[in-house]
């Protein structure tokens, strides 16, 4: 080929294809079919454009069916060699993902990659993708808006995610349990914090983001500990907890113990928990009656009633005594939560807002209180109020247009998201609202979930970037691909992911869907984030002292 294919290793030529169904390439005879993996990248040099493609399928083909009826046996080495690449050959199905126009004269690629609108001419040469191609498409980590999240399957070039685009929408991290969702999430959060693109509020159900967490080895056993966000970023991250005892037992220094007064719990909060609390719809209506009478103190008033007073109380608010009695009985469960109190002297929400306002990231640990009931209750109450405050801040910003009034983009991470965002709950919880209204109010979600099919379709279709580890269930795969055009070929890719350290990225923050080996979460990663320890720390301290006070 001429100058355009210089240095690129040839893989084959395009022989067939269509824009909708993808392209077919005849594999060169000196290239083994076994070296072609689904998900790898190749570049097609068309006449006028260069196409960036992903391998979606590999097939063995023959020009002569007779050969298949009477295949050469093992001893006929010459026959095999002769047939290989001529009568029998490999066909590789390619999905063109991006194209860039070539300069007519020089053959250079001046333009930005954009979506494919056409296909290359017959017999266009296909070559292996190189580092430069990957960088051109996924950006380079030298640019602060890009964060290196992994590598393509068979290359060592970083694949970067565009954080600027990432924070603009709500995002999802999906995957079966044990496929590395938590690691992916921690990785993404570390990237967001490191590049300081947004402030994070993480509802950390299993207390695995803030302080150290255990790492599973590839054979399933526990391998050791990895550093949490607080360890990596120090004062940039604050750990809040609703279970200070658990934090103390684990040796975690929490910055704030969250207490929630009863008067911050609204009927909506309770309504969205009706599944967990096993509430009847009439119970919710009764709760509204109490609210009408007692306002914000409805819950404490209800819970302070003795069983024999229920009937009078019911008459008083105008509700059915049985219904009030059932509500009373069921809500009594809330009393056992230590973090719910009649009076608190410091409002957790203001404290959170204060930290967020300072650009600090908050990990809210649940410690022992990791029941869904507790998790959803706290996440709902806090998020609703934080969202209200953000709406107010945004309105102020819209009024003043002062840059200092612009609220800092907030990303709220929720786990087991389908509990909040299933078709019923999504209409009641604040998370449904946030997911739908997107970035209008500078708040977006990072949804971590293992059962995406339970999440409301409308919300899934609004998810900007999806980072998906292995999923097996057809329904889940279908759900993750909701709102992705031409997604059928991605199904195969998704189902063929390894169960460890592999993920499919697609959506707003990457120019095209890509399968990656996720970056290792190890000391090399820590130091890339600027974390220093041991001797290096001493050296850094000494150099800082020298900078401050001069050499002594």
């Amino acid at each position: 080929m001429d100058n355009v294919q210089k240095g690129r290793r040839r893989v084959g030529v395009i022989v067939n294809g269509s824009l909708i169904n993808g392209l077919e390439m005849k594999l060169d005879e000196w290239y083994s079919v076994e070296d072609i993996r689904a998900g790898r990248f190749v570049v097609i040099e068309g006449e006028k454009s260069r196409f960036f493609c992903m391998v979606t399928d590999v097939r063995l083909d023959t020009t002569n069916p007779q050969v298949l009826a009477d295949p050469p046996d093992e001893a006929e080495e010459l026959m095999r060699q002769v047939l290989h690449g001529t009568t029998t050959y490999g066909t590789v199905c390619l999905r063109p993902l991006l194209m860039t126009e070539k300069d007519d004269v020089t053959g250079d690629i001046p333009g930005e990659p954009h979506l494919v609108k056409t296909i290359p001419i017959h017999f266009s040469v296909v070559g292996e993708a190189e580092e430069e191609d990957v960088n051109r498409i996924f950006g380079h980590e030298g640019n602060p808006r890009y964060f290196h999240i992994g590598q393509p399957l068979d290359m060592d070039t970083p694949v970067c995610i565009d954080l600027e685009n990432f924070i603009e929408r709500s995002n999802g991290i999906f995957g079966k349990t044990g496929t590395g969702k938590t690691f992916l999430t921690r990785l993404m959060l570390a990237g967001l914090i490191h590049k300081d693109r947004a402030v994070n509020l993480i509802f950390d159900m299993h207390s695995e983001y803030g302080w150290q967490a255990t790492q599973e080895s590839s054979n399933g056993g526990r391998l050791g500990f990895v550093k949490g966000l607080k360890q990596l970023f120090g004062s940039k991250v604050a750990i809040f907890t609703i279970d200070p005892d658990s934090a103390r037992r684990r040796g975690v220094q929490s910055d704030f113990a969250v207490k929630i007064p009863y008067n911050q719990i609204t009927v909506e909060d309770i309504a969205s928990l009706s599944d967990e609390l096993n509430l009847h719809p009439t119970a919710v209506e009764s709760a509204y009656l109490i609210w009408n009478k007692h306002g914000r103190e409805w819950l404490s008033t209800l819970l302070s009633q003795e069983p024999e007073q229920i009937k009078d109380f019911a008459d008083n608010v105008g509700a059915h005594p049985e219904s009030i009695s059932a509500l009373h009985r069921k809500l009594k469960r809330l009393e056992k939560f230590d973090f719910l109190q009649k009076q608190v002297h410091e409002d957790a929400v203001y404290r959170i807002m204060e930290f967020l306002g300072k650009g600090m990231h908050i990990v809210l640990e649940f410690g022992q209180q990791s029941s869904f009931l507790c998790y959803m209750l706290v996440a709902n109450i806090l998020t609703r109020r934080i969202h209200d405050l953000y709406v107010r801040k945004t309105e102020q910003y819209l009024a003043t247009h002062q840059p200092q009034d612009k609220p800092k983009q907030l990303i709220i991470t929720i786990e087991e998201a389908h509990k909040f965002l299933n078709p019923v709950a999504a209409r009641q919880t604040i998370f449904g609202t946030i997911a739908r209204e997107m970035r209008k109010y500078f708040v977006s979600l990072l949804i971590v979930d293992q059962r995406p099919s339970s999440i409301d379709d409308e919300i899934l279709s609004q998810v900007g970037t999806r980072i998906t580890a292995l999923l097996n269930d057809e329904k889940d795969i279908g759900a993750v691909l909701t709102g992705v055009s031409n997604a059928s070929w991605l199904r195969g890719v998704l189902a063929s992911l390894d169960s460890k350290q592999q993920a499919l990225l697609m959506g707003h923050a990457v120019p095209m869907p890509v399968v990656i080996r996720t970056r290792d979460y190890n000391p090399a990663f820590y130091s890339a984030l600027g974390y220093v320890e041991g001797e290096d720390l001493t050296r850094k301290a000494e150099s800082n002292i020298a900078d401050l006070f001069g050499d002594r």
Partner: protein
Amino acid sequence: MQDDEIGEVIGSSNIEFIAESVLLHNSPPFGTFIKVQSRETIYAAVFNAYTHSLEPNRLAIAYHRSDQELRDEQPQIFELLKTKFEAVIIGYESEGAVRYHLPPQPPRIHSFVYPCRPLEVRRLTSQFHFLRSLMSVEKAPRDELIAAAIRTAYAEHKGERSFLVKIGKELIKIIGDDYELLSSILRRIQD
């Protein structure tokens, strides 16, 4: 230096010719490459050879003697026998370059025939066009002829296996769908 001739053209056409061997029973081997010094040097591959009596309607008679006894007792009968061979033209040389197509004129009658030198065989067979000429022969089993020619060429290519593989792939293009023919040729090359 000119090699000794091995035959003389006694019948010719644009695509093949017949030559009479200089020595009885000493035609060039089947599937080897020969050349005719005519107006141009014409290259050909031997596809047939036979020995018969001078008189067209008479068969030789069996004497039940060994070759030596026959030579001692009846030397004249050898004078009555002739060895002839037929070859298919695969190209010619013009202005110092080998052309892989038929010569403009057939070889002249009475031109001498010489064996190709190793270097010439290498040059002729470094391009695989000769296979197509061999495919057109109908008077000899094609698989045998092609296999023999490839073996000759292979010997001159120092037994490089890659040569065999390359020529095999070329054969597939020429033979097309006939998998049987291909496998019978390849089997013959391999032995």
